[in-house]
């Protein structure tokens, strides 16, 4: 069904609210409409991302020369902690599910809203509360935490900085994440439109569904772990502190039992978006649809069994280490299944390389480097050498920023016309893609070399022989800043001056392209009835999308 046959609504959700207040801020912050909540998240998350980037620029500036350059060691510790906490808990974990999941999950399954709209609003409020708490920790006496985002024991019970507030903030953010996950699982089970059977769902839904399960199952573990440190710090209860008999390694286990699966909370939704974009711009059904769907579930499951690969140097038994190393290799299989199926999808497709598609290409390239260097770290012999060096810093930026972060931007460009009803300047957007690739490699590739040569992470100082690579990396950081500014400016500009977007600008066939841009309050004029599979591009034949 191309836009010719779709019945288009005359009023979008921007004109009709769910609250009594039709305009002003109350119409937003008390709205239970999943689309408005998605946009609330968008606004908040992008703001925190910018803060995280600015802090990262300070970190890179400090590292432009050995010795103290702009901040002392103490401040440096706080800066990378803050950068890590913001990027992990406020940006990349909620990122795609909270914004694009909220906006598009109900639409893609043909529902009017999520299963629990008010709970959804509560999740946003919890998110904002957690974020506000994290920010207050900056200004209270004691200052921001300096433990690193991992809050390792025993330092985290000893330090005088505001670790307790930061932990509590992370706890609340976790709660928000759990409620979103619970909401999405229930929505997928209960609210699919008539005819939308499991294997007719878009792959984005499968990915969000698997992610939601991880959020529900893994997050409580970090919740209780952080809570226990709070109790330990505030009341002096002995739990992890070794002077009271506690076991710091137990803390590490509990921490990573959540935090490794959290890596999949970051990457799985991104993979879902990739499947959508590749299908749309190749005009082909996704090759091996079922395999791609099941690989999401497999990743979610096996991702549970690999956590101790973060602890190879923490004194694991040899058996445990070998086992966890093996399982880490196993988890690469479902990811590889996805990559090969994506490539098979493009093969003989009629590829239309628009901006979102270009972002996906960048993703596949960067994510592959991130994934393969992950295997280097997953091997015992090499990890002992590379553990806690810049090799790790490079690896996780390739996965999180080059992987999930890139797709965050891709999703922004893919769905922007639908969310805001406007088109952006594609030439500038394409320029953003190229500049991103170049800046990214300049910024992070030297870090692999630094780490390989022995530069440890979390240090404000380094040996003089490392300076050249550090300077290159810092220049990369400046280029990245310019690139991100250009990308954001281009989109903001489009909001103000962009051309009106049609209902289906790319020739997509999933449900969101069958309603108007932006969608009406209840998403569809009539609840759609689904008959064919998710990516049936024969519907587009004979239309303006260039299919024969």
């Amino acid at each position, binding site marked *: 069904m191309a836009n010719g046959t779709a019945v288009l609504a005359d009023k979008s959700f921007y004109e009709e609210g769910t609250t009594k207040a039709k305009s002003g801020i109350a119409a937003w912050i008390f709205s239970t409409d999943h689309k408005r909540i998605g946009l609330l998240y968008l606004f908040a998350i992008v703001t925190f991302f910018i803060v995280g980037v600015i802090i990262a620029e300070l970190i890179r500036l400090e590292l432009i020369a050995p010795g103290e350059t702009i901040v002392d060691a103490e401040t440096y510790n706080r800066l990378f902690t803050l950068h890590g906490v913001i990027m992990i808990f406020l940006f990349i974990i909620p990122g795609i599910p909270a914004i694009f999941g909220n906006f598009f999950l109900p639409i893609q399954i043909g529902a009017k809203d999520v299963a629990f*709209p008010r709970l959804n609003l509560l999740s946003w409020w919890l998110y904002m509360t957690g974020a506000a708490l994290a920010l207050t920790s900056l200004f209270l006496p004691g200052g921001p935490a300096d433990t690193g985002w991992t809050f390792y024991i025993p330092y985290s019970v000893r330090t005088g900085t505001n670790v307790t507030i930061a932990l509590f903030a992370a706890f609340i953010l976790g709660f928000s994440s759990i409620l979103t996950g619970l909401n999405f*699982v229930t929505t997928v089970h209960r609210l699919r439109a008539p005819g939308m059977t499991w294997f007719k769902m878009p792959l984005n839904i499968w990915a969000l569904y698997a992610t939601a399960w991880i959020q529900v199952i893994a997050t409580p573990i970090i919740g*209780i772990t952080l809570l*226990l440190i709070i109790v330990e710090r505030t009341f002096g209860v002995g739990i992890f502190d070794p002077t*009271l*008999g506690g*076991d710091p390694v137990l803390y590490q286990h509990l921490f990573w039992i959540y935090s490794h699966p959290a890596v999949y909370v970051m990457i799985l939704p991104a993979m879902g978006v990739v499947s959508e974009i590749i299908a749309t711009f190749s005009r082909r059904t996704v090759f091996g649809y079922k395999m791609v769907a099941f690989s999401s579930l497999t990743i979610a499951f096996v991702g549970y069994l690999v956590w101790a690969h973060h602890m190879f140097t923490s004194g694991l038994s040899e058996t445990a280490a070998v086992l966890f190393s093996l399982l880490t290799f196993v988890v690469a299989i479902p990811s590889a299944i996805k990559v090969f199926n994506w490539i098979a999808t493009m093969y003989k497709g009629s590829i239309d390389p628009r901006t979102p598609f270009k972002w996906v290409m960048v993703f596949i390239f960067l994510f592959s480097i991130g994934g393969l260097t992950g295997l280097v770290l997953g091997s015992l012999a090499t990890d002992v050498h590379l553990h806690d060096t810049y090799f790790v810093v490079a690896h996780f930026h390739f996965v999180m920023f080059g992987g999930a972060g890139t797709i965050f931007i891709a999703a922004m460009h893919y769905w922007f016309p639908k969310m805001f009803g406007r088109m952006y300047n594609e030439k500038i957007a394409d320029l953003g893609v190229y500049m991103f690739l170049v800046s990214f490699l300049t910024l992070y590739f030297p870090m692999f070399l630094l780490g390989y040569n022995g530069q440890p992470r979390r240090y404000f100082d380094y040996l003089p022989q490392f300076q050249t690579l550090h300077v290159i990396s810092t220049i990369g950081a400046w280029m990245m800043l310019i690139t991100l500014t250009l990308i954001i400016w281009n989109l903001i500009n489009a909001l103000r001056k962009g051309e009106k977007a049609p209902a289906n600008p790319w020739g997509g066939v999933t449900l969101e392209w069958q309603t108007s841009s932006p969608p009406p309050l209840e998403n569809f004029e009539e609840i759609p009835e689904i008959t064919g599979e998710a990516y049936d591009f024969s519907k587009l034949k004979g239309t303006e999308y260039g299919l024969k």
Partner: protein
Amino acid sequence: MVSNNSSHTTHRHRDDVGAKLGMWLFLFTELLLFGGMFLAYAVYRMKYPQQFHLSAMEMNTTIGTINTIILLTSSLTMVLSIAAIQKKNKFLSIIFLVSTLILGVLFLINKYFEWGHEISKGIYPGSEVLLSKDNGEILYFGLYYAMTGLHGLHVIIGMIVLLFMLVFIINDNIKWDDYVKLENSGLYWHLVDIIWIFLFPLFYLIQ
């Protein structure tokens, strides 16, 4: 105004199965929350079997047993309250719900005396008496306070939820043909009960 309202009501559809599915998922997360602590308990018990044995001897099994009976009974009254509303007996439902609440209060009073007793012996986090003990004992009492404390907090939250349900029954927001809220609150209350069923043997019985 009218058109605004109508779009409002079509929006909020009713789905009891969905509501229960959501609740079960939530209970699952609660189990995992406590699961993390049970894991810590298991690890430390393996590490310090002797000291855990010694510390458990200090516990007052009688108070623990009474509290177990109280919570089990409160689960029964909870179920009866739901059964009553299904049979359209609003009055009886209220009576049973209030009984559940009273039993919850009794549980907390008992807990107060129990903690008070330990504290009067000088055993509380950071106290000199406790710090002079062995590491295993410090951990035992650390876990004891953390786990029963978090459980107590859940009892309080459960009671607040039940108070809301009471109001809902009174003003007919919960009725014989629409009681999924009450059922879900009941599920939560049973969860609190079940967790106690595990805490009780771990701290009071296994010696």
